Each structure stands twice: as C-alpha cells, then as structure tokens.
C-alpha cells in the first residue's frame, strides 16, 4: 500500500468510526493553536452534519414526526450502518425504511413515513415520459381491448401502507394539526405529472382501495385488460368486472399514469 493510500484508508476509517483513529492522529500536525484532535474532529463532525442535513431534506416530515433529537440519533446510526457509495448525498437515504423497521419497531409509522417520503423523492427526478390520453385510447378498436397492455409512467411508485402516514404527512404539509396515529391499511400511489412549474413538490400521490391496488399491480406486471377483467370476476359478475376494469383504466389515464399501450 502506498503512503497516500494508507493515509486515505486510515482517514476514512476514522471518519466512519473515530475509535479507529488513534494511530491516524499522528499523521496530522499537532499545533498549539487548534491541535490535531480538534482538527480531525472538524472533519468527523462535518461528515455527519452534512449527511444528516441531506437526510433531513429528503425526509422533512419524518424529521417532524421523530422530533430533532430522535431524528438526529436515527440519522447518526443510519450513517454508521450505511456508508455512502453514491456520488450525490441525495441517494443516501434509500435504506431508511428498513433502518427504522429495525431501530424503531415499536413505532411503525416512522418506517412508513420514510417509505412515503422516499417515494416522493424518487418521483421528483424520475425519467420523463409523455402521457397517453383518453382520445388516444378511443382510437383502439373494441375487439382488441382484451389484449391491451399498459405501460406506466417511470415515476409511478406503489406503496402498501398499514398506517395513516399519508394523512399525517398531508396535515403537516398544510401546517395543520396531524391526526392521531391509526391503522388504515390504505395503500398509496406516488407519481409525477409532467412538469408543474408552480408546484414546489411536483410529485402527486393518492390513497386507493385494496382492489384497485391489486389491479394496478397486475397491470404494471404486464397483464392485459382481459386478464384484469378475469381477475375482477373473483368478486364481480363478468359484466360488472369489465365495467370496473374500464373505470380503473379511465382513472389511471386521468391521473396521467399511463404513457403508452
């Protein structure tokens, strides 16, 4: 190992875990003005502050829900367990849901809030795609509908949720008093509609019923309109199932979720 490689390996090991920095300290000039320990401490603290700030930017409402102290503690343990391999800190937070499931199992709303906010951030700069309109679909001959398959917007993100994280997020976003934590078993869709120049958020979301959630999951996996109808016949008559499937597709079109067929 070259001298430079040794310095960098030791410096990095110290930043990740200061107990591994004792030997490295001797590589830093120890002056009377500040001192080597304090100088290295600046780097040690900055590494954490910077990432905590980046995590707080991606997880603003999780920050509110946990409060400053618990968010800080959570972020620090997250950083210790998830050293970045990313070029941009913005991508560092991807394991937060799993981290919270592990560290705060008694508080499951936290992990769900993280999953929701991560979904919003993914939708924000996901790939662009043009949207299919009802008029485009009207040109499709009726007899070919059964084989129709749908391609969904790259920003679309499906989130199965058990708790009312979305409602709490919404209230906090409007600076209203959030509702009490409750189990709702309401899944959620997150996506981006084109470029909304006037919205700071740019990501859209809505809660949906379990039946629609299953239907869209099926459609995303590549199932045709015909298969969708068949699936719905578990609970509905053939005619009702077809009407329901058509209603779903029309809703997805209106939401801007389908990009092509």
């Amino acid at each position: 190992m070259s001298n430079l490689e040794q310095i960098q390996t030791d410096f990095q090991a110290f930043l990740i875990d200061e107990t591994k920095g004792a030997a490295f300290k001797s590589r830093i000039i120890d002056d009377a003005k500040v001192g080597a320990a304090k100088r290295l401490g600046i780097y040690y603290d900055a590494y954490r502050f910077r990432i905590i700030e980046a995590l707080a930017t991606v997880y603003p409402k999780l920050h509110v829900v946990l409060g400053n102290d618990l968010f800080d503690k959570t972020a620090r343990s997250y950083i210790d367990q998830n050293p970045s391999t990313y070029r941009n800190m913005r991508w560092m937070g991807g394991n937060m849901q799993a981290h919270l499931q592990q560290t705060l199992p008694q508080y499951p709303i936290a992990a769900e809030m993280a999953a929701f906010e991560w979904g919003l951030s993914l939708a924000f700069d996901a790939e662009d795609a043009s949207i299919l309109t009802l008029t485009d679909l009207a040109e499709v001959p009726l007899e070919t509908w059964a084989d129709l398959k749908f391609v969904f917007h790259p920003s679309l993100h499906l989130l199965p949720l058990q708790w009312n994280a979305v409602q709490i997020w919404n209230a906090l976003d409007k600076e209203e008093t959030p509702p009490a934590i409750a189990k709702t078993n309401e899944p959620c869709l997150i996506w981006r509609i084109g470029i909304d120049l006037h919205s700071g958020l740019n990501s859209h979301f809505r809660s949906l019923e379990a039946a629609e959630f299953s239907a869209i999951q099926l459609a995303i996996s590549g199932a045709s309109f015909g298969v969708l109808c068949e699936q719905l016949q578990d609970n509905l008559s053939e005619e009702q199932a077809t009407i329901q499937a058509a209603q779903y597709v029309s809703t997805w079109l209106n939401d801007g979720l389908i990009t092509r067929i």
Partner: protein
Amino acid sequence: MTQTNNSQSLTSQPKLANLGFGLGLRTEHYQEILNNKPAIDWLELLSENYMVAGGKPLHFLDKICENYPVVMHGVSLSIGSTSTIDKDYLRDLRHLADRVQPAWISDHLCWTGVHGQNMHDLLPLPYTEETAKHVAERIGIVQDYLGRKILLENVSSYASYVDSTMTEWEFISLICEQADCLLLLDVNNIYVSSYNHQFDAKAFIDGVPQNRVQQIHLAGHHNHGDYIIDTHDTPVIDPVWDLYEYAISRLGQVSTMIERDANIPPLAELVQELDIARKIAEKVQAYNPSAVRLPRHIK
C-alpha cells in the same frame, strides 16, 4: 493574454474565454432566473445534481442553458483518491456536458473517499511529490476522456499532514505543470486555509501559476475563533473582498462568481453582492488598466 476563442484544444494557450460575473445556480432561483433574466453573465451548475433521469432539475437546466452561458462544477470526481477513477461517473459527466455545453468543467483538488465509498467531503491531500504525480496522472486521464482541460479548485482545509514537504501553492503549481490543467481559485478558501494554517494568503496567490487561473470563487464562512469553517451560508466578508482585489490586480480579469449553498437569500441580494465584485474589478482597472479587461459579451 485572454483567449478569444473557446477552443477545447489541449495544447493551445492555457486560458479559455472570460465569462464575466456569475452565480452558482440554485433550485430556489430557477423560476426567477427564467422570468426576470437578471443581470448575471453566467451560471455555475453543480454537476451531480443534474446526473438524474428527468423531472424538474433537467427541465429547468435546459431552459436556463438557452439563456445563459454555464459552467459545470463537480464534487465527486475525487481526483486525489487512490481508488480507481469511477468510469461511470466520467461517462455521466461527459453526457451532461454534451447536454449543457459548458464553457468548462471543474472539480476540487482533493479526495472524497476510497474503497468505493464517498465521504461527501473535500478531504485534504498531503503536499508531496508522490501525491502531485499521482493527481497529475489522473487529471491527464480525465482530460483525455473529456477532450478538454479541466479546472481544479483549491479547497478549504482544517488539518495538515506531517507528510507534507511543500506549501499548498507549490503543490498546486507542480500539479498544474505536470497535468497542464487550469485552476479555479477560491479566494475564500485561501482566506480560510491561511487562517487555519497560519500562512500568508497573498503568498498563496503569488505562488500559483497565474496564467492558469480560469475562474474565481467567492463565499462566506464562519469564524470560530481558533479556526474558520467554510460554510457558504453568509455574505463574503471584507477581508475576502480585499484579497479578491489583490488577486485580480495580479491575475487580470478572471471569471468571478459567488457561491451560496445554504441560508440562500433572494436572488436580488446575490446579484447585488456580485456588484461588489464588479466595482472592485472596475477599481482595479482604473489603477491598473493592463490587469483588468472588461468581459467580452458571450451569448
């Protein structure tokens, strides 16, 4: 002395065109820049923020590039690292450059991590001949890949190595000579490091290869008494403006911009702060006409 064409040749005279007075592009200001077309000569974008698939960042960037000359500034090249150069990063950097056609591309003279990890900090290098050679070789690889000279910026530092055998400006000079690259001189970083390591900031400016300084950064910082932390969340302080005046009286007209990364004020405030730089440039021109030239208008 000032290059009049924006040639990408690696062998011609060192400098590229002078762009005038610019600002760092921040998301908070997208809309205002597009609506009001403020009097900013050019904008510096943070490369990593636009290495994304789509959405608002790229949408606004494309629009802004139609109206302003831009330069690209990165933080994750890790030119001083002993790990292999991240080829995916270089590919994405070149891809972004193809999209925005920047006047130039810059990053920092530092390392950000080893063994595939990123500490997201601009970590200092030991100032040795071994390090200079290592860094210069890697700059060569990057410049060949991008087909253009890159700019490297002096960073603020808080610690110095027992291993160093030369001053930071000697180290920078050695690298520039070996790599034939350009310099982004951060005057605030010089001030911060000179305070933290007790060296003469003017000696730094006198010591770097002046004909390679293509761009100047200015920013604010936090003084903690014993040391200064480079924070980019406050206005530029007077001693840094004085140092800027000293720099351009030596270097001549150099593309200058203010960096603000946190506590971001309304755009008008930064445009006003930029006027201080313009006034200083005018003042230097009055007493030293050969040093300062007004920027060519670049569309």
